[in-house]
Every structure is written in structure tokens, then in C-alpha cells.
């Protein structure tokens, strides 16, 4: 287990600083559609007399939003997104990555990472927090309106039907299931009383597996009529009325020899 759980601390040693940026949902959706190397846009950092202004420009091809309601491609995502920079505050935010198991790095075959258990690595520490806001534009307003409309629709709604639904159930004389059941019962027939000794053997072997049995289960196992079975059970077993094992049958103490009971036959 040496590798599992061991955290790779190279990121912190190098003191790599990263930025934590909060990005609106629609933008992250657009980014997910990026093709090729994954280029999504350009980040422009402007140092204006000590104050830094950061702005992100979305690539042209990614501005088309599809699938919002019926209006496809009618609304486009805004392109300009200024960043609002914030300090990290007192918090220490570190970034760690997890290489999920099952995705072993074929490339990193030399190292023992990624195969099977997760490999955890500390990538760096957050030095700057930022929020990506879209620049207020006509486009953005339209987009937002669409979103709100989508969300305000209730999940369930009532719809009136013109015709009554008649396809589900049809009246039958007798259901198929019932027929099968009766047939099975007929075949099995009434349970016949087997030899007492045989029944006792069956019972003992059953009680070897479990200590407590319901009468119904015993009937099932032994295939004996209930009355007969009960007679036999009265001989060798006791019926628990109270306690945790309510209404169950168990063997009499002298017949038991369970390991954890230390009673002998």
C-alpha cells in the first residue's frame, strides 16, 4: 500500500500557483464543445497602473448555443468576459488531483501511478480567485431570459387527453397467471404424509442450517401437511412465542448442538 494514498507533493514543492476561476454554467458547457487541442479563447491581462484587468474572450466558433428550448442557434453566447479578481483571503486552497482507477496511464508506464488505486498528487496552491462574468450585452440578456423561461417551467404538468386510454387492461375471464397457479397446485397435489423418520431427518438437516424456522418455511421444505408437521415438531422442538424470534420453531435444547451454544445432543 505504499503507493496508494501517498500524495505526490511536487506541486507544492515547486510552489506552483494557480488561479481558481468561477465560470458560468453556459460557458463551461461551451467549453466542453471545444474541438482540437481544446482552445476555447484568449485571456487578456492588462496591467493598468498597478491594477490588473483580466478579460477572457470566447472563440467565435464556440458562441453558438444550441438546444435551449426550441430556439436553436438563435441566441449566441457573449464573447467578452471580464474577470473579477479576488484575494484568496485567509484560506489556504490547495489543488490535488486524483487519477481515477481504471484509467491507468499507459504513457506513464514507468511509474506505478494510476494503475488500480488512485494516485493523488498535489498540483499547487491557489494564489488568485476570480469570477468570470459575461459583459452585459444584448446577447447575454437574451440568453438569460431563455434560461429563466426554461427553468420556470414546472417539471410536471397536466395535459388533457382527447380519448380515453383503453390499451392497458382488457377484461379477461381468467388471467394467465392465475391459470398457471392453479395448474401448478393441481400437479403438486395435496401433501402426503411421509414416513415419520424421513420427516425427522429432513427437519434435523434443516435445523442444522438455521436455528429458527417459521412454520410456513418448514412446510415448504418438508412438503408435509401442516398438521402432521406440527405433531412432529411438538416432539422435537419448541415454539417461541415471545422474544426476538417470534413465532418460530426451534429444536429442543437436548437436540441442539450449535457451535456457539455449546450444547450437545
Amino acid at each position: 500500500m505504499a503507493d496508494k494514498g501517498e500524495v505526490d507533493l511536487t506541486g507544492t514543492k515547486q510552489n506552483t500557483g494557480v488561479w481558481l476561476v468561477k465560470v458560468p454554467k453556459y460557458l463551461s458547457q461551451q467549453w466542453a464543445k471545444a474541438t482540437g487541442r481544446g482552445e476555447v479563447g484568449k485571456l487578456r491581462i492588462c496591467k493598468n497602473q498597478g491594477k490588473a484587468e483580466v478579460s477572457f474572450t470566447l472563440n467565435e466558433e464556440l458562441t453558438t448555443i444550441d438546444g435551449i428550448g426550441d430556439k436553436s442557434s438563435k441566441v449566441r453566447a457573449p464573447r467578452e468576459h471580464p474577470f473579477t479578481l479576488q484575494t484568496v483571503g485567509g484560506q489556504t486552497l490547495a489543488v490535488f488531483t486524483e487519477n481515477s482507477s481504471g484509467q491507468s496511464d499507459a504513457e506513464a508506464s514507468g511509474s506505478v501511478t494510476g494503475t488500480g488505486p488512485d494516485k493523488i498528487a498535489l498540483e499547487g496552491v491557489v494564489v488568485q480567485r476570480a469570477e468570470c462574468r459575461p459583459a452585459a450585452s444584448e446577447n447575454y440578456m437574451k440568453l438569460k431570459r431563455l434560461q429563466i423561461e426554461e427553468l420556470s417551467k414546472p417539471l410536471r404538468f397536466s395535459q388533457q387527453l382527447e380519448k380515453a386510454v383503453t390499451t392497458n387492461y382488457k377484461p379477461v375471464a381468467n388471467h394467465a397467471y392465475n391459470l398457471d397457479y392453479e395448474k401448478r397446485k393441481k400437479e403438486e397435489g395435496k401433501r402426503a404424509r411421509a414416513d415419520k423418520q424421513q420427516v425427522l431427518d429432513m427437519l434435523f438437516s434443516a435445523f442444522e442450517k438455521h436455528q429458527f424456522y417459521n412454520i410456513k418455511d418448514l412446510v415448504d421444505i418438508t412438503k408435509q401437511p401442516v398438521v402432521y408437521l406440527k405433531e412432529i415438531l411438538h416432539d422435537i422442538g419448541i415454539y417461541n412465542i415471545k422474544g426476538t424470534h417470534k413465532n418460530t420453531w426451534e429444536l429442543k435444547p437436548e437436540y441442539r448442538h450449535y457451535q456457539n451454544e455449546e450444547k450437545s445432543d
Partner: protein
Amino acid sequence: MTSLGSSSSSTTEYVVRVPKNTSKKYNIMAFNSGDKVSCSTWTQARMERDMSNRRIYGEEESTDGAGGSEFGKKQREEARRKKYGIVTKEFKVEDQPWILKVNGKAGRRFKGLKKGGVTENASYYIFTQCADGAFEAFPVHAWYNFTPQAKHRTLTAEEAEEEWGRRNKVVNHFSIMLQRRLREQERGEEEEDEGEKGGKKKKKKGGKGGDLRIHDLEDDLEISSDESDDSMGEDGESKAKTKKDKGPKGKGKKKKGSDLEGFEDSDDGDFEGLEVDYMSDESSSEDEEPEKTKPNKGEDVPKGIDEMSDSEEESEEENKNEEEAKEEEEEEDGKKTPVQVEKKKKKDSSGESESSEDSDIEGEAASALFMKKRTPPKRGGGRGSAGSSRTGSRPGTPSIDNAATSNTLRAAANKLEQGKRQTVVSSSETPAAKRLKMDPSPQSSSGKSTPQPVSGKSTPSSRLPSLPFSDVQLTEDAVRRYLIRKPMTTKDLLKKFQTKRTGLSSEQTVNVLAQILKRLNPERKNINEKMHFYLTE
């Protein structure tokens, strides 16, 4: 990169990439600012999921084999759960907390809980700058808040409630945990013998552990120590702390008379700056640290009592002393005092420390001394060592000791001391001298404030003109005791025998000390590049 022409601003453009096929999931590890976590200090770290919430499959099946099992139990249980609509949440490994261990066994431990709702409305991305100047954005998969886990012992809920009820009476908080530890130890080891050293130690701890209460002298110390729960007398707590600190070490030290007043005196500022005079194991030389002195005192208190009892047995003629001595013999030095104190406390309602003082004090001189940080000078009893405090208190101020446990107690004790002073004067010189010695020593040991010692010193001189001024004698015996207890440098030794207390000038002290050292011829050891002396006997 494009740059604008204006000189005051410069613009750089970077390409932003969102890599598509990373198998790595990025997560945020958030620490609280108050925890002062710096990732750069980590040399090695291990992190794994905390699987303690997972119900192992077979766990609920308590029976294995046939004994006790029912036929079809599982199905029945499942059907029953469904009927009642009990939905057991699936155990998802992804949502389990992380356990992060930094810097191995001795390092810190953190628990990281997943923060919900992070990715619902907005996504977080981590922007890292690559070698080619472009930024790469990785989506954050989950956010975990890491909090440090306490390594120290904590009280359980019941214990905490108990302590809460006693919060107004308990001054020495150190003894709370000490008591608990002692109790556990006692339960584990079942050591009952008080007479043995170990038992003594335990008892002492127990007694110190905050069981400082005012008890009747006649009470069996054992009872008190057993009974004493977390409620601790103020003195006892400090003692307990001391014990805690030097538990293993200080036990045998009888000469801890100086730290008799080892209790936290948070509200009484009189004792600040009091110097710990006598052998205190730990930073005995650090008088400025009331805390340390307090623990020291705590330890000394019992020791003091021991010593006192020892010395007293010889010299004490008063009945009280005899009683005390007997008690000490039975119970163990030092322990008795706290124990007795505890007992007394227990007996009396907590608020009646004063009354209890009066009744209990007999023979509780030492405890009284300990408790009463503030009135060490009054003691006047020469405290050569811990024991002295007891003697000092015994003769005249049994009640005073008990009073020390609380402010009111102290006030009462003070009064009593004053009264005692007058009586003390009449007592024999030796005990008086002893008391005097003891008084100052506990004083100094306890974190009494400087004014206290000053006042203390003046009191003896003013009230008990017959008593000698020095409470700390620079004798070979004293030096030997110090050196046996722990290795000390000459500087430390000098601190012990301060000029104010011994009445010698600094030059004289140095000379005398040098002579003594020559006579003793202690062994030398270099610790931290300083030459320490020590004796082994």
C-alpha cells in the same frame, strides 16, 4: 502577445485551453485560515478515503453458522424495511471524506469533508499557466474542506457536562485531563496500593488532578482520591498539571517544596512573578512562566507535604502536625494534602471553602500552603523544602491551606494566616523557622506575583521578628537535592538560591556554592552545549 502603446499599462494575451482528455480529476483542498496550514512545510503526506461509514456486508448478520439464525431472515428484514419505507443510502466512495496525514506519525492529521452544492450552478476551473505561456483550464470536480484533527485527548460528552457544572469552582484546568488520565490508569492497572511509590504517584496525580478539596485530615486519602472526579481544587489542578508534566520525573522528588503553590491563580494577580525556588523539574528556572511554576508548584505541593511531613515528624510537636504526619505516612506525601483538601472540599459544599477550612485544616498545613499561593509569605514557616510548607501551615494555619482553593478561600486563608502569624510567633523557633522557609519557597514556586513575595518577605520580618529572614538556605543538602533531581547548570543553581532569599550577597552565594560543589563533586554532563552537574544516588 500584443501590447498597447501606453506606458502605464501593458497588455498580454494568452491562449486558454481546456484539455479534453485528462484522466485526472481536479479537486480543491480547502483549509481554514486559523489552522495555519502551509503546504510547503509538508515533507510527505498520505491521503485516503475514510471508509468508516461503510457497513460491511456481513456486519449486520450477527450470527454465523446455524446458531441463532433464522430461516429467511434477510429477506424478511428487507421486506420489512420496504414496508416502512426505510431507505438506506447507498455507500458512495466518491462522497466519503478524506483522511490526510502529513509528515508521518508525528505530524498532523486532517479530515476532508466534501462540500455540497459546489458544482450545481457554476463551475470552478483551475487555470494553470503552461510552459508555452498558454493557460490551461481544468474543471474542479469536488471541493473538500479539511479540518485538523485533534491529537490530544478530549473529554467525552458526559465528562464535559460534568466539567461544565463545575466550571465556576475549578480554576486549574490542567488537572481535568490529568485526572481523567489517572482514572484511566487506575482502572487499567488497578493499582490500589497507596503506599507504593507508584501508587503514590498515582495518588498524587489523583489528588493533584484537581481533587484538591478541603477535606478533613482524618479522611482517608484513598477515598478522596478515588472519589475525586474531575472537580479539582485549584491547587490540585496546578499540581495535577505538574504531575502531568513531570509525572514520571517528579515523583520521587521530595524536595519540591518550593513549588508548593502550584495552582493557577488566574484571578489573583498577586502571585505573578513569584519565582519558583525549589527544585522544579521542568523549567524550574523559568519563574516567569506562571504556568510552569504552577505545575511545579503542583508537584511541589505534594512533595512539599512529603518533605514537610518528614521534617515535621521530627520537629513537630503539635498535635496537628502529628496528625498530618500520620496522614502523610499513611497516604503519601503530597497526596494527602490535595486529597485531604479534596475530601474536605467534597465534604463541604463547594461554596463553603471557608468554613471547611476551619474545620479541615488540621494538619493540612501543606495543602493550605499550596493552595494559598497568595499567602506564602505569611506562612513564615521555614520552608526548606516542600515539606516545610506543611509544617508551616500546620502549626498555625491548617484552615488557610484549604482556603487556597478558591478566591474566597484565599481571602479567608489570608486572614487566617494573619491570625496564625500571631500564634506562630509563639511557637518554637524551629518550626517557625521551617515555616518561614516553607512559606517563601512555595510562594516563589507558585506563580505568585512579585508583590506577593515581597509582601511575603516583609511579613515575616514584620510580624515574626523572631524568625530568620532567609527561607532558602544555601546548604550542601539543598544543592545535593537539586542535583540529584535533575542536572543543572551553575546558573540554574544560582537561581535557586537567590540572594534575596538566602540573605547572602551574590558574591557570597557564588563562593558558598562553589565550595559546596567542590565538596559534592558532582558528575558533569554537557547538555545543549552547557555544562550541567548532576548527582546519582
